């Protein structure tokens, strides 16, 4: 098989694994647009990097992380819903990015192209990068899993137990942001935002408990990526959209088997 297809498959499996795993929290905490917000916000970092002549990816990660943690901060501060805060931070940081870009002299960088990574263009470096991030993410998630869930279910009990709810939340947001930003670089924002929401939602439709939700989510994410890449290969379709199409169809099918 073509080495590029092999790398795409590896990238697809790894990113869909990570996204589907943390996506369960994303969906349950009603932050379905977190990925959008963080990645769009990172454009302000790219613009800043252009202005200060630093590495755009560093700028993107910096501002993206800040935004992710900022969601947590402002939700706490304002007591508004997290989707509202995300809905505020996205245009806000975009507007800052756009204003910054307007100060760049000469031929202006195409910011948006940072959001349209393509899974077929996965490099070896990307694979190492995603593996390198997977390991700490999986370890931290495994350690904090119970607390993440407890905070989502019953924040009062978590506080009574003396957990540093705010810190745990920041850690959670930071992990989430990191996964989103790196996945976006590799497979592009549209695919990432689909991988974060659709497999968990599918799993929620048919799972009988929390454990199953995680397991099904990961299975649907990975299966969808592999099938999608296969379909795009055979039918000569753009790969990202093909994956999204496949996981969306799985979602629609899951509605037929819905449990309450």
């Amino acid at each position, binding site marked *: 098989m*073509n*080495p*590029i*297809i092999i*790398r795409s498959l590896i990238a697809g499996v790894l990113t869909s694994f990570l996204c589907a795993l943390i996506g369960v929290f994303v969906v349950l905490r009603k932050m379905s647009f977190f990925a959008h917000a963080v990645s769009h916000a990172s454009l302000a970092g790219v613009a800043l990097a252009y202005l200060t002549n630093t590495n755009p990816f560093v700028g993107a990660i910096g501002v993206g992380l800040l935004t992710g943690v900022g969601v947590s901060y402002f939700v706490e501060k304002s007591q508004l819903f997290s989707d509202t805060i995300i809905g505020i931070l996205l245009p806000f940081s975009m507007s800052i*990015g*756009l204003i910054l*870009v*307007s100060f760049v*002299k*000469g*031929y*202006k*960088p*195409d*910011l*948006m*192209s940072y959001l*349209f990574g*393509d899974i*077929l*263009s*996965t*490099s*070896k*470096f*990307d694979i190492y990068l995603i593996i390198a991030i997977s390991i700490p993410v999986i370890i931290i998630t495994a350690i904090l899993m119970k607390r993440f869930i407890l905070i989502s279910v019953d924040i009062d009990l978590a506080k009574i137990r003396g957990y540093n709810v705010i810190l745990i939340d920041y850690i959670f947001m930071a992990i989430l942001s990191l996964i989103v930003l790196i996945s976006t670089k590799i497979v592009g924002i549209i695919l990432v935002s689909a991988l974060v929401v659709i497999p968990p939602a599918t799993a929620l439709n048919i799972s009988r408990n929390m454990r199953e939700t995680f397991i099904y989510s990961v299975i649907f994410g990975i299966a969808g990526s592999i099938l999608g*890449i296969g379909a*795009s*290969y055979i039918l*000569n*379709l*753009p*790969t*990202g959209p093909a994956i999204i199409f496949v996981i969306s169809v799985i979602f629609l099918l899951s509605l037929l088997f819905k449990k309450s």
Partner: protein
Amino acid sequence: RSKTESSKLKVAVTIYPFYDAVKSIGGDLVDVFVIVLPGSSPHTYVLTPQDLQNLENVSVIFENNFGLEEFLKSVISSLTARVVNVSEPLKNVVELHNGNPHLWLNPEYFVIQSEVIKNTLVELDPIHKDVYEKNYENYKKAILNKAAELRQKLVNLPNRNVITFHDAFPYFAEYFGINILASIEPDPNKLPTPKQIIEIENLIKKYNVKVVFKEPQLSSDIYKSIVEDTHVKVLSLDPLGDGVKIKTYTDLIEYNVNTIYDALK
């Protein structure tokens, strides 16, 4: 037949104008494949699995570089094919224009890019050096002659002031003596300020600009208010060719020059 097929040099180009160059210089000796088919924009292109299969089998890829082909960036390292930056000799020019990559729209630059293509073909297939050299000379001559003729057509126009949407045409304008007063850049990242828009309207009035040029892929109603206030016409310039009416490089510059000529005459 299959023998000759397999002995052919297999080449890929990123954008359509280079396809014409390779075709014209390599003739039957070369099999060429264009990644960004006419109609699509290299700025937003994403590779398909089919592209990858095609790229597997080529020995060289000609690219314009300077940020035009973002889609190639990360696959390059894993391709067996050699990637040749045809704009290498024009580095300084690009720098002067703040990194604007649309070099090929100036026939002189395009000829230089074609020369890089020719040199590469010669290097890869030295046996047919003479054929390539000869074809290149003919190609160059045809382009420069046609270009000079077209330039003449525009030179006599009384008013050569135009405004463009996208920043694709500075090199083109440079060669053909068109005066691009302003480029509006209707791009999500490059939003204009009220001053700029007002300035553009003032420029349009001051220089009696009759036409604003856009690209065929981009939504045109973005600057409709300027159009409404100043009654300028909006026409499409094509930086790449459509593969149907505009097949060759000379077609491309002829189409663009004629479009401008018709609008300004």
